């Protein structure tokens, strides 16, 4: 998706671009509600899936994953797209002149050279998913052991008398999770840059 938006120009590109980025701008409850309308058991896709596969998406963990993915997708696409458009096109041409078809060029030249940017996108997407609240609670609710994500659990505990200690435990857990992810990505980014020959400290 990022590659298409970075490299291609076609009719309706700005519309697709807009649709991809919508969840970034809308209040999270709106995409959550839309997902519920479309994928809920009464929604036209949700109904189809329920009839043929006897599976629901709304109010299940699959829905929670989907809600997070929809919300995080624009951040991923944005940074990957920026990284891809910054790869020197001359190198891609050089690879093509050596006999590499466009798919091979993408996987052996474009993707490795934009890796630091793609990684940044992953971190952003991860943090967006970790903090996802609005779309999740609207689409899949807050069901214990099924769709109660970390922020939903913390919120629930703070609403219950005597839940402070439990909430605190989860707060520490999310701190560790977030810090660990940031350190890991920083580490990977450093390695990637070193490999490309421009070390940023």
């Amino acid at each position, binding site marked *: 998706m990022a590659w298409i938006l970075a490299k291609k120009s076609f009719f309706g590109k700005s519309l697709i671009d807009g649709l991809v980025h919508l969840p970034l701008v809308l209040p999270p409850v709106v995409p959550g509600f839309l997902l519920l309308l479309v994928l809920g058991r009464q929604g036209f896709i949700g109904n189809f899936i329920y009839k043929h596969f006897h599976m629901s998406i709304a109010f299940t963990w699959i829905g929670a994953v989907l809600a997070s993915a929809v919300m995080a997708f624009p951040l991923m696409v944005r940074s990957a797209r920026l990284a891809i458009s910054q790869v020197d096109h001359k*190198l891609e041409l050089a690879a093509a002149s050596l006999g590499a078809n466009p798919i091979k060029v993408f996987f052996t030249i474009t993707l490795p050279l934009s890796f630091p940017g793609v990684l940044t996108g992953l971190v952003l997407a991860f943090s967006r998913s970790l903090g996802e609240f609005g779309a999740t609670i609207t689409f899949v609710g807050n069901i214990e052991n099924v769709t109660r994500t970390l922020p939903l659990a913390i919120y629930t505990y703070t609403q219950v008398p005597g839940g402070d200690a439990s909430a605190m435990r989860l707060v520490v857990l999310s701190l560790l999770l977030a810090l660990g992810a940031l350190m890991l990505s920083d580490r990977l980014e450093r390695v990637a840059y070193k490999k490309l020959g421009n070390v940023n400290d």
Partner: protein
Amino acid sequence: MIEVNVNFKRKDFILDVNLIANERVNALFGPSGSGKSTLLSIIAGIIKPSHGRISIEGECLFDSGLGINIPIYRRRVGLVFQEGRLFPHLTVENNLLYGVNLASIQNQHVSVNQVLELLEIGHLLKKPPHHLSGGEKQRVALGRALLSSPRLLMLDEPLASLDDRLKGQILPFLKRVAEEISIPMIYISHSMDEVQQITENIIMIENGKI
């Protein structure tokens, strides 16, 4: 034999070339802005001409009349650029081998060892490109192009970014490649001195015309 008969228009520039080169090694000489690099891009398949025909050794690469336009990755035109354009994330060895595995075996006329010996780059294999000097980079770029088994090798001002001392060091390698490897070659430069050292077959281009 290289036959190029193409027409290409852009706002303030018209390229109208009718060129038949019978010799194996040719130099394309002309001042900057004369259309040398545009012509190279057209032959390589980077730019599509308005109309015309391009064929190398009887094989047609482009023909607007017949609707033939072989994409760049199947043209087998080896390019060496002014700035080398080595892939920064690969070692010298993997840069050299990049095109080898993509070429079919019956087209491979030069071996890796032959290239390493000819260009004296065997000791650089494990290094990343940013640890090489300008001259070494150009030798690796030349080797990489040779190993992609091209039907035509085009060098676009390969010495322009080097100082005089380095130029003097690289020229013998270029001459060696021109003499010892039987691939048709077009050497592009705006320096007559350089061109004369490589070949006597000089094609002049000015204002988009031969």
